[in-house]
């Protein structure tokens, strides 16, 4: 258990029982070259080129970068700057599907993964353009390469999905159980680790039997244990998952590998399995479409599909006064136009009523200390908020604003509608500006 956090009513029942539906192949996709943490990929195709599904259209521009593949077969009709669902924008390859185009690009046969070396596994993960699919989109092959002087002891598979509303990872664990577990074994092999944990929140207890059954048929000898954790946001935060399972704390501003842990998202494990066993690059993902849509769904969607198309596929939005949130309601981002593509890190599309967060009337802090009790990083949001409000960045630094994981607990609980997380993001950005000067 970690200190702090919140119990938030989860709203997961809206889409929990919906089996994953495959979204039909779209006519047109816009595939951003920057969907990941790190440098944007360099385009590997030109306007007018014909591409096949799974073909590389972007190549890594540096060490921390990623391959990008086409998710449909068709013609490149342009490479232009497009808005992303994460609020940024990026050069994107626009592909329009062509009738009669060859559906698949040929893939060489690959040997059983048990026979591969860690290096070979890491290479095929890199070639498949796999990035963390829980939201951070950090290139996964980098995580599989343990830096010198560090040693990976535990692999943790993050099945918490602690954000309210989201059920995509839950459905994947339920429907693609064997593939996820095989992905976890491949990760362990790549990191030469013997001990792994799967962490799920107690609201997903029905998965226990299914997962335990899958754990009985491991392909390599491994010690994998299933941990049922408290339903407490942000249980799925990397640092808090590690704390809950191993009892260790990632050092301030450090990385999980500093204490021998490496954490992977459920869908990342699935993608790794498909890349290593089937030579399939990352061109699709499962996401939850929920909230005020006519029919909430869990959809398997090709990367680059327009959010607007997905919304109309789910029967459209129920109310005019709404806000569109990409990701979870606690950390996701509110965008104004649905004309953005799904990217590798898009975990959900949620339609919320406009008034869920009044926010207009920001009142002074009354020092009720609810935010302090809720902060899972043990910061003092109440004081930090006042300093940030007065642009006292140095005081924010002293009070460790850099440790804030932006989980949103403080803003959620604040009775004075103070936009605490926003203030901290602002303070962090200002401090980064100062540092780089």
């Amino acid at each position: 258990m970690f200190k702090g956090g919140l119990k938030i009513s989860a709203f997961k029942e809206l889409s929990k029982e919906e089996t994953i539906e495959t979204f039909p192949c779209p006519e047109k996709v816009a595939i951003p070259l920057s969907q990941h943490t790190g440098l944007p990929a360099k385009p590997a195709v030109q306007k007018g080129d014909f591409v096949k599904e799974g073909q590389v259209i972007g190549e890594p521009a540096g060490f921390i970068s990623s391959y990008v593949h086409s998710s449909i077969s068709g013609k490149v009709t342009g490479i232009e700057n497009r808005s992303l669902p994460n609020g940024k924008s990026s050069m994107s390859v626009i592909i329009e599907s062509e009738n009669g185009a060859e559906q698949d690009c040929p893939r060489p046969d690959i040997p059983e993964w048990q026979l591969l070396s860690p290096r070979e596994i890491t290479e095929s993960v890199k070639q498949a353009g796999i990035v963390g699919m829980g939201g951070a989109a950090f290139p996964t092959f980098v995580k599989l390469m343990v830096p010198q002087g560090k040693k990976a002891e535990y692999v943790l598979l993050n099945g918490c999905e602690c954000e309210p509303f989201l059920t995509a990872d839950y459905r994947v664990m339920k429907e693609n159980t064997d593939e996820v577990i095989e992905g976890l074994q491949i990760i362990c092999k790549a990191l030469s680790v013997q001990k792994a944990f799967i962490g799920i929140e107690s609201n997903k207890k029905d998965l226990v039997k299914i997962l335990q059954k899958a754990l009985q048929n491991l392909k390599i000898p491994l010690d994998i244990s299933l941990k049922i954790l408290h339903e407490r946001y942000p249980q799925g935060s990397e640092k808090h998952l590690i704390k809950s399972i191993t009892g260790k704390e990632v050092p301030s501003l450090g990385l999980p590998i500093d204490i021998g842990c490496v954490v992977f998202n459920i869908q990342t494990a699935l993608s790794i399995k498909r890349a290593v066993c089937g030579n399939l690059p990352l061109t699709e993902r499962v996401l939850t479409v929920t909230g005020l849509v006519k029919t909430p769904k869990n959809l398997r969607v090709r990367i680059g599909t327009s959010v607007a198309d997905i919304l109309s596929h789910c029967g459209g939005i129920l109310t005019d006064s709404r806000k569109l949130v990409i990701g979870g309601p606690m950390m996701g981002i509110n965008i104004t136009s649905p004309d953005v593509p799904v990217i590798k890190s898009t975990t959900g599309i949620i339609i919320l009523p406009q008034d869920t967060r009044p926010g207009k009337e920001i009142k002074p802090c009354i020092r009720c200390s609810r935010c302090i009790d809720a902060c899972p990083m043990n910061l003092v949001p109440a004081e930090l908020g006042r300093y940030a409000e007065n642009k006292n960045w140095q005081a924010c630094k002293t009070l460790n604003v850099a440790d804030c994981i932006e989980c949103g607990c403080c803003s959620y609980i604040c009775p004075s509608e103070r936009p605490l997380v926003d203030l901290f993001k602002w303070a962090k950005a200002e401090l980064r500006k100062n540092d780089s000067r």
Partner: protein
Amino acid sequence: MTAGNSSISREREEKMNEIRWAPHIKSKDSTPKIMYTVTIALLPAMLGSIYYFGPSVLKIILVCIGSCLLSEIFSKKLFGRTVSINDGSAVLTGLLFAFVLPPGIPLWIAALGSFIAIFLVKELFGGIGYNLFNPALAARSVLLTSFPLQMTRYIVPFSYRTDTITAATPLAVLKENASIQLPSLWDMFLGNRAGCIGETSTLLLLIGALLLLARRIITLHIPAAYILTVALLSYISGQNPTLQIMAGGLILGAFFMATDYVTSPLTNKGKIIFGIGCGIVTFLIRQKGGYPEGVAYSIIFMNMFVPLIDRYTLPRKFGMPQTKRE
């Protein structure tokens, strides 16, 4: 420091209206809701006071609440701040302030005190969230030094029905070692004793306190530390701890005054230190000081240490061995 209403810069606010950052869902807690819950928690004791000291008490309470509201509107206009009386804090301050006045207080003194509480103690320091001292208690202290006679004129319960008879509070009786009979502990528990308007009934105050605890508006840290410290010190010095707890304003002070968010420490550790400090000062004033009662002064005294306590009780940050603050 820019005081008063939120001073987030305009550019930022405009940007925030454009894109609403996470989180997109919100707890149902709000400042007015908290303030009105505390007000409701005080209602049993308020009804009790009308029962014991007569309908004139209700007049005092209404004058205090009304003057607090007017003073708040006046100060907000004076300082050019947005009037925010619907946050419920002025009503609560008015009620709490009436609770610490003697039942026979002249109405004009009550009105003046309300103005002091809101204008001098709260708004001059920046308004809600920025005051250093508990407004009701600070105003009471000002009045006690300014109008010592009127502020110590207590009356015998139910005497309003015939002729109002003045009486000493149990703590005053103890202090002077007078030969007057003390009310029984049971009467003190029910509230049948001389004292300030809202402080006499331990039972009715505890009912309200239970509501606050159940709704998690307050925690036990401050009241428990405060009351236990007073009880322990009384016991050691040969006093009757039960009497010390119920004879004065300790229950009202510990549950409703010392727990005031704005003027108490932020962390649980800090709250315990604050409660113990209040307990020690209360005990010292009662036993060694010139006044029979010390709850109001002790809380105000400890209010001064809140920034210091906050500074030295920062929580240990996640992933850090120890917290140091330069």
